């Protein structure tokens, strides 16, 4: 069983480490290589230098211990919402009745009930994104690698799914590497935020987020600590985009 410590070292510069059960967000200018970093951890791409390790073991290709939520959803167009959601369970040999129950749980969580028999083609972008989330959560990988998973959603839905994700992360003790361009989202969700430099992206800074999360969203987002951290990340990121413009 994977505990879920992700180490990324010496890919040009040390990227860092996500501890077992940690929620780590990654922010950086567009095109800096955030998705590429995620694909390296997923084992889809091989680093030209350096290593990616899970629990200290260098990875060897993709594995069911890591689940990616793709930026462009990457749903199977020939499978229905339910068929997409059960794919990982099918491959794991989970019996059909169980598969359906698990899929239904996540379909409901993603507010997609009634759409089980629809094909991705028939859904809106935001709905596809939620199917993609359901699909990855359903087969229960220890490490979630999420590439702007809430980018296509409106605010109420995004906030509700953020809280669902936090529940899942806490209850199931998953390691989450979460890419976003939304600084507020990064700070709200994560324990640490990795800020990347502009292309070709390296680690610029790692910011600790120290919030009292016992009180609920409103108390958190209105707290001084939240605002302070958010501003610090924002400034750091802003520096990158500005030096980026000056260089050009």
């Amino acid at each position: 069983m994977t505990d879920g410590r992700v180490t990324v070292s010496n890919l040009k510069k040390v990227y860092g480490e996500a501890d077992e059960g940690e929620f780590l967000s990654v922010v950086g200018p567009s095109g800096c290589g955030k998705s590429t970093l995620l694909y390296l951890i997923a084992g889809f791409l091989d680093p030209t230098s350096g290593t990616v390790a899970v629990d200290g073991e260098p990875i060897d290709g993709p594995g069911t211990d890591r689940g990616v939520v793709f930026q462009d959803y990457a749903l199977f167009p020939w499978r229905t919402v339910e068929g997409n959601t059960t794919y990982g369970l099918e491959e794991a040999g989970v019996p059909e009745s169980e598969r359906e129950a698990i899929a239904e749980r996540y379909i409901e969580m993603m507010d997609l009930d009634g759409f089980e028999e629809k094909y991705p083609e028939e859904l809106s972008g935001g709905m596809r994104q939620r199917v993609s989330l359901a699909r990855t959560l359903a087969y229960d990988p220890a490490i979630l690698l999420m590439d702007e998973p809430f980018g296509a959603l409106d605010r109420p839905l995004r906030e509700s799914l953020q809280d669902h994700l936090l529940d899942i992360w806490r209850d199931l003790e998953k390691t989450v590497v979460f890419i976003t361009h939304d600084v507020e989202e990064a700070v709200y969700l994560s324990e640490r935020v990795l800020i990347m430099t502009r292309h070709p992206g390296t680690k610029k800074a790692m910011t600790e987020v120290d919030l009292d999360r016992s009180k609920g969203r409103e108390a958190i987002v209105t707290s001084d600590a939240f605002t302070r951290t958010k501003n610090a990340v924002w400034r750091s990121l802003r520096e990158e985009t500005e030096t980026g413009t000056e260089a050009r």
Partner: protein
Amino acid sequence: MANADVPLSTDPLPGVLRAPAAIVVQWLPLGVVTALWELASGRVVDRAVLPSPVTVAGAIGDLIATGEVVPHLTVSLIRVAIGLGSSVAVGVALGVGMARSKPVEDFFDAFLTMTYPVPKTALVPLAILGLGVGTEATVSIVFLACLLPVVLNAYNAAGDVDRNLVWSARMMGTGERRVLWKVVVPATVPEIVTGIRQAIPIAFVALVSAELVASNRGIGHLILSAGQLGNYPRMFAAIVVISAVAYVAVRWFELLCDRVIAWT
């Protein structure tokens, strides 16, 4: 829902007339050709060589009424089915294999490019030499003629499969080989279908050409024997019958695909 099929038509005709109008437009060329044929027969070309459509219609009626056409048509259809079916099986495997494996691609690429311009019906004498007159020779010609459209469509599409789809399956535990079957083939289905759709008329062309010389049965043989006896109404009747059957085969396949492939 975002992509619901809302009919956006710029057709100036009112709705009730649209369907009949489409049918008229669809069948108009055939009507024109038949009319020209009727006019030419007996005026431009000797009626004995080019019998009028009415005479041919009578001959078609005879062919059907006597049941003569049935065994020939059955043999021909079985040959098309076997030839086309095996070309789909081999073609999809070959196309997908070429797209996903460099050695397989290198091995077949030059071969396919070189055999592409060869008219497959030019191989009929060779097929007779190797396989004798009969089903084996005709089926192999149909197979060869259909293979290329199937391979090329599958090959191009399988090479273009979104890498994220392949990665999705890999992360959910599908092995590198199995991905071909679980992802690459289904993702390629729309183009495979296009290839088969293109191959159906080609199959009938190859079939008739091969049966003209390489068979003692089948519609192609019927055409040739009627021609040799100078029974031109019967010859044209056989040609019309096989054309109609080919048309029905294409339409049937299109309808089947609409039904079976719900996701495109």
